[in-house]
């Protein structure tokens, strides 16, 4: 790069910069009072003059899809800078297509008309007119995927029959489609896109181009286009290793048991069976490290297939490549193969490259007795605390691990490691671990650790911890989180001292959790008071029954969720669960489903079934939003309710 000396003095450049900045600020400020058309016209003028447009693009974005429809009027193939800016507007405003249709109808009627009514297709064609241009603006692929599914599918279908498809454009479009599908944003045209992608797989001119072939394989997997499985299996025999790797990855993703909550009914058993011979062939014959790495990951799709487990055990013996071995151990964590112990065993004695660490992680998923000797041997060989090893020892719950864990705990200063050690001790039954946990609770001053130890004490009702829990529950100088946890832990004790402490707290909760304490946030006080009542109710104090209902009704959704989680933990029914199943707040509904499933699934079975059949659950499942696995919790609760032993 050649740097030229400035042609103007510094003061002029500074003033000019400030002037331009001020103009942009004024333009943006004024945008609030201007029509969509005026904003787009100014954007066009700025883009055509080669000036920055990002502020105006942002202003147009705030106007929703109506601004995109205006922008479409100004699209001109001969004005690439303008087209780029306009397609940025179209892409940003059309991101709303991911929203549930009724939300769109209510909040953005213009977008609803374009995306969810038959006459919207014409508007989509206007938005996507750049698809036919010789050169595409960089922002076009994402914009048309979001804004114009109908013409985009048409364009893909045209390429599918073209003897000379435009591979560069296809790759760009397939990449944007992949992002869109992976976010579960497609609402209206998933099947049409899947079919168009399958049609592309039939174009030999396209698949002859390896990068485009790979992009197509990725897109097929992203779209869950299981119709294309035969094509993917054929590609797994391709000459180019990178194509085989992409095909193996796509194969695994296409036949994977559904993880998306809305697809749970779609088992894909037949497709998995169809792909199995090719998978086993690859496991036996493939030698390319990249392909084998993908193969190891794909293996987890056959979650309970012994033949795949055997093939993976043999593969683990056959290859030295650490990536493949690590991927295999990651896959093992998610499977139920009979050979999983043997594979983990080999990983535990691996010479290095991180394989042992992943094997230890796999132990936490499969704490099999046969793995105990190897983990104990590793414990003895390590002088300093190893997080993965601590987790594995805790998962195995073998008391022979205690000396090493206690030795590490004595010298450990890192809080994160201390927390892991406390968790491991908590999982190992017996008096020795109980004494170690009690001792740690009595001498620790670290709030997060104390909070965890309070919980452990409550779960195991550690006898020696009771005095400390009583002290903590009443200590107004202690962090409110610790006190709440100590209160809840006291509910797990049957001793008189615990009852007396909770009675004392319950008589004057305002003394211990004062509402005017500036150091406490109101919701924490509410939760603490609720936990006092919950703990007393847990101990069998019948007088708390109605008080619990009263506090629940007054509480915020967060407080109600705390209550429902507590009921789920102790598996006890209370009328608040029934009210939670009719809640319109997400966290309360989530807590209600979990509590119903844990406490009295048969009793709530009709309510749970009705909930599963509701449009709300269908919308949540299909939304791509974080549902905290509510649909899965609902399935599990219904399953528990249908089990014969759950009949009241």
């Amino acid at each position, binding site marked *: 790069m050649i740097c030229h000396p400035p042609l103007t003095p510094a003061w002029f450049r500074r003033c000019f910069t400030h002037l331009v900045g001020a103009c942009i600020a004024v333009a943006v400020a004024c945008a609030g009072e201007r029509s969509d058309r005026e904003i787009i016209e100014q954007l066009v003028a700025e883009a055509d003059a080669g000036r920055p447009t990002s502020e105006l693009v942002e202003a147009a974005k705030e106007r929703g899809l109506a601004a995109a429809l205006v922008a479409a009027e100004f699209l001109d193939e001969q004005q690439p800078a303008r087209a780029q800016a306009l397609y940025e507007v179209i892409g940003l405003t059309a991101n709303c297509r991911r929203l549930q249709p*009724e939300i769109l109808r209510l909040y953005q009627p213009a977008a609803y008309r374009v995306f969810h009514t038959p006459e919207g297709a014409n508007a989509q064609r206007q938005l996507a007119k750049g698809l036919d241009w010789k050169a595409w603006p960089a922002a076009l692929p994402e914009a048309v995927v979001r804004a114009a599914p109908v013409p985009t599918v048409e364009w893909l279908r045209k390429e599918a029959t073209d003897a000379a498809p435009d591979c560069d454009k296809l790759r760009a479009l397939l990449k944007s489609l992949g992002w869109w599908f992976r976010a579960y944003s497609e609402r209206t045209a998933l099947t049409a896109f899947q079919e168009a992608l399958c049609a592309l797989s039939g174009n030999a001119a396209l698949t002859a181009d390896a990068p485009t072939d790979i992009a197509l394989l990725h897109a097929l997997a992203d779209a869950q286009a299981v119709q294309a499985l035969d094509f993917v299996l054929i590609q797994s025999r391709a000459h180019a290793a990178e194509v085989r790797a992409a095909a193996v990855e796509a194969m695994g993703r296409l036949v994977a048991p559904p993880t998306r909550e809305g697809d749970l009914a779609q088992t894909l058993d037949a497709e998995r069976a169809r792909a199995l011979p090719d998978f086993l062939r690859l496991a036996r014959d493939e030698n390319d490290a990249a392909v084998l790495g993908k193969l190891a990951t794909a293996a987890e799709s056959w979650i309970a297939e012994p033949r795949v487990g055997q093939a993976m055990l043999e593969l683990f013996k056959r290859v030295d490549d650490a990536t493949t071995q690590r991927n295999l151990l990651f896959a093992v964590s998610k499977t139920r193969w009979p050979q999983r112990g043997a594979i983990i065993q080999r990983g535990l004695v691996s010479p290095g490259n991180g394989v042992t660490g992943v094997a230890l992680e796999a132990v936490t998923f499969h704490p099999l007795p046969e793995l105990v000797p190897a983990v104990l041997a590793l414990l003895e060989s390590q002088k300093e605390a190893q997080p993965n090893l601590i987790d594995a020892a805790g998962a195995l719950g073998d008391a022979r691990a205690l000396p090493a864990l206690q030795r590490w705990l004595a010298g450990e200063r890192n809080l994160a490691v201390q927390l892991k050690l406390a968790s491991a001790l908590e999982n190992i039954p017996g008096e020795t671990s109980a004494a170690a946990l009690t001792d740690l609770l009595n001498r620790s001053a670290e709030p997060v650790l104390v909070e965890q130890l309070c*919980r452990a004490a409550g779960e195991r009702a550690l006898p020696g911890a009771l005095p400390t829990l009583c002290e903590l529950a009443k200590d107004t100088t202690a962090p409110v989180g610790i006190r709440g946890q100590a209160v809840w832990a006291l509910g797990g004790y049957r001793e008189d001292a615990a009852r007396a402490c909770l009675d004392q707290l319950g008589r004057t909760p305002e003394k211990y959790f004062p509402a005017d304490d500036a150091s406490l946030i109101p919701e924490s006080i509410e939760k603490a008071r609720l936990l006092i009542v919950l703990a007393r109710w847990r101990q069998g104090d019948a007088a708390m029954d109605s008080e619990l209902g009263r506090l629940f009704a007054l509480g915020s959704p967060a407080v109600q969720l705390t209550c429902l*989680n507590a009921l789920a933990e102790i598996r006890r029914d209370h009328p608040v669960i029934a009210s939670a199943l009719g809640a*319109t707040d997400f*966290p309360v509904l989530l807590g209600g489903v979990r509590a119903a499933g844990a406490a009295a699934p048969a009793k709530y079975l009709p309510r749970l079934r009705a909930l599963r059949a509701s449009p*709300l659950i269908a919308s949540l499942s299909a939304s791509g939003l974080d549902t905290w696995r509510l649909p899965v919790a609902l399935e599990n609760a219904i399953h528990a309710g249908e089990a014969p032993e759950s009949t009241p």
Partner: protein
Amino acid sequence: MKMRTPAAMIFSLWLAVHGRAHESPIDHVERELEFSVKDGQLLLDYRLRFSDRALLMQVGEMDTNGDGRLSEQETAAYFTAQAAKLAELLKLQIDGHPLALKPTGAARPDIKLTQAYQFCAPLTGLRAGRHAGLFVDGHSRMYPGGYRWRQNADADVKQTRVVPLTEPDPKTTQHPEWLELKFEIIVPE
């Protein structure tokens, strides 16, 4: 780290509240409010911005006949009920005396996925001078979230106007547990 027991969930929720974490099943609500005085009425423009998940839950609540589609009657009934519920939760005091807020007009869902509500309260008998105002948002206690207090910088000093007294506090502005705003109503001579 995977959650093993509901106790761990309680533990994590407690931490979430204290740590102001955003990975939470609790849906935060952002709010924007503006006070003004017109024709002897204190007007409150109150906007709520819900998460996508909360909007979905609301659609379920609006869809009273369960057909998966929202009719105009269903949405109108919902917003009317919401406005009435909000009016109960929003507490106002002028010179220490409670004033009841009443919903005015229909709530508007808008393009930014916000719901705009208008409330009013009569300002009868206010003499010239400064009058202490307090606004307590009970809705924020149930549904915490950030807020923005819009102020009219060009208010005519010859007219009765609202002047905020609450300074934005970085500790609470981002995520108030319970929104309390102090202001003054200045009635000119």
